[in-house]
């Protein structure tokens, strides 16, 4: 139990996937200009990440390892993630057509969110068991959601700031992300 809580704390704050490990930056920059879209994207990514880390764990333990095909894991995980994303897409399309329209191209792009593949690969590298893998994926998704949502609220404010012209738009977003990543370094050592 303590280990699971430690994993959760570590993935959400200390080793946050976006601000400390710099994974999943494209949706972080791409879908953060409006708070409501960001919340939708956060929910979709949480769904996909948790499911993908479970599926990739199962595939890796029950298919790849017995067959001695560990060297295929990157390709296998990409395939698993693509399937999970497709499933999430169908799920969202039928449950919330509005969110589906709002997320648009970013939904299939979760496939290329490197945080998803990163979680799957780190799970095998760290030899996590089933529960640890699930919590690791879920925690990574919560950490991603946290910073994405906070960042999008901040970007709504930046949109009306008197930013010098060369720094408008994505540039100031990148600088803000960098400063936030500095702030997240304060969590270093927490929970160890």
């Amino acid at each position, binding site marked *: 139990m303590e280990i699971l809580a430690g994993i959760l704390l570590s993935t959400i704050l200390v080793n946050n996937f976006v601000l400390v490990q710099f994974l999943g930056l494209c949706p972080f920059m791409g879908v953060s*200009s*409006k*708070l409501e879209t960001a919340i939708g994207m956060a929910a979709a990514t949480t769904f996909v990440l948790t499911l993908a880390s479970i599926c990739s764990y199962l595939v890796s333990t029950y298919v790849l390892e017995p067959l001695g095909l560990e060297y295929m894991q990157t390709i296998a995980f990409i395939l698993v993630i693509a399937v999970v994303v497709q499933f999430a897409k169908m799920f969202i399309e039928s449950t919330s057509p509005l969110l589906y329209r709002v997320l648009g191209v970013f939904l299939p792009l979760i496939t290329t969110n490197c945080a998803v593949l990163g979680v799957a690969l780190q799970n095998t590298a760290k030899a996590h068991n089933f529960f640890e893998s699930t919590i690791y994926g879920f925690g990574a998704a919560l950490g991603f959601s946290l910073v994405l*949502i*906070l*960042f999008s*609220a*901040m970007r*709504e*404010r*930046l*949109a*009306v*700031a*008197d*930013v*010098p012209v060369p*720094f408008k738009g994505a540039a*100031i977003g990148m*600088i*803000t992300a960098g*400063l*936030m990543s*500095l*702030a*997240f*370094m*304060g*969590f*270093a*050592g*927490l*929970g160890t």
Partner: protein
Amino acid sequence: MRITSPHAHTPGNTGDVMKQIILATIPGLIALTYFFGPGSLINVIMMTAACMGVEAAILKLRRRPLGFYLGDYSAAVTGVLLGLAIPPYCPWWIVAIGAISAIGIAKHLYGGIGYNPFNPAMIAYVILLISFPLEMSQWAEPRTVLTESKELIGPFSALSHIWFGTPLTGALDAWTGATPLDSFKQNNSLLVEQLYASDSLFSTARWAGAGWEWVNIGFLAGGIYLLYKKIFTWHAPIAMLAMLFFCACIGYDNGSSNSLGSPLFHLLSGGTMLGAFFIITDPVSSAVSNRGRLIFGALAGLLIYLIRSFGNYPDAVAFAVLLMNFAAPFIDYYTVPRTYGHKKAKRATIKQES
């Protein structure tokens, strides 16, 4: 007769408010200078000059009126606060890099006064702390723990150390020492009582840690003056101090060797009071509504306690403030106050062209 809302007005402008804030830092600055020598005073003067200089240069680049923006003293306040936060007797280039980070990056890249989402002084402090951990963790020993062979650093040796790197009274560790927060954090074998008796940082102090308790009381006095002057509302500072007090009560466990510090120790150590009254009350980078400020302050207090107790850094005010600055727009989004004449609060989102 008390003058009420529509008739009452505050004479003055941004410049007056900023001057009051600078005035209110004086008790803390006096305490720092008395206990640690002239280092902090030199820091404040150099940093203020550097910040004003960077501000002027960037205003010129941006073709903004110099007199108007320099006259609001906001750059001076940033300089004073950053000068108080960095350790005394740090080399001149720390001051230069700090001023450029604070005014250049944290303030003007976002459009100058009123737009900065992060507190400029704290951004600069964190950039310095992460880039130059050695220089940023050398605090001078307070006056009360100095023995016969060591004496308080004089202004001339301080200046030559800052500008030319001349060693101060022999070896480095002759004048630097652990701060109370450091030595409390590193202790894991002594009971709190034993630590207080054996470490001169605590045995020569009245409540919390030599020198630091008076520095914090100085900033508390300045903060109360600002509250009296209605420069800011009580919500954020009180929420932060109350949360820190509450957490410290839980973690104190009556002073075993695993104790995380008494409530008084946390309130009167490190940057607590400077943070509570001068940093998180920044009107731009904190939450806007009173309810938002309560949440903002309480979460800042919680983060300070968590990072101090379980993180790698002995003091955490700067990190906690930045993390809360990051969360402030989100807090605002969900704490929009009800406007007069409406039954429910209306959500204030910014319409964007897309």
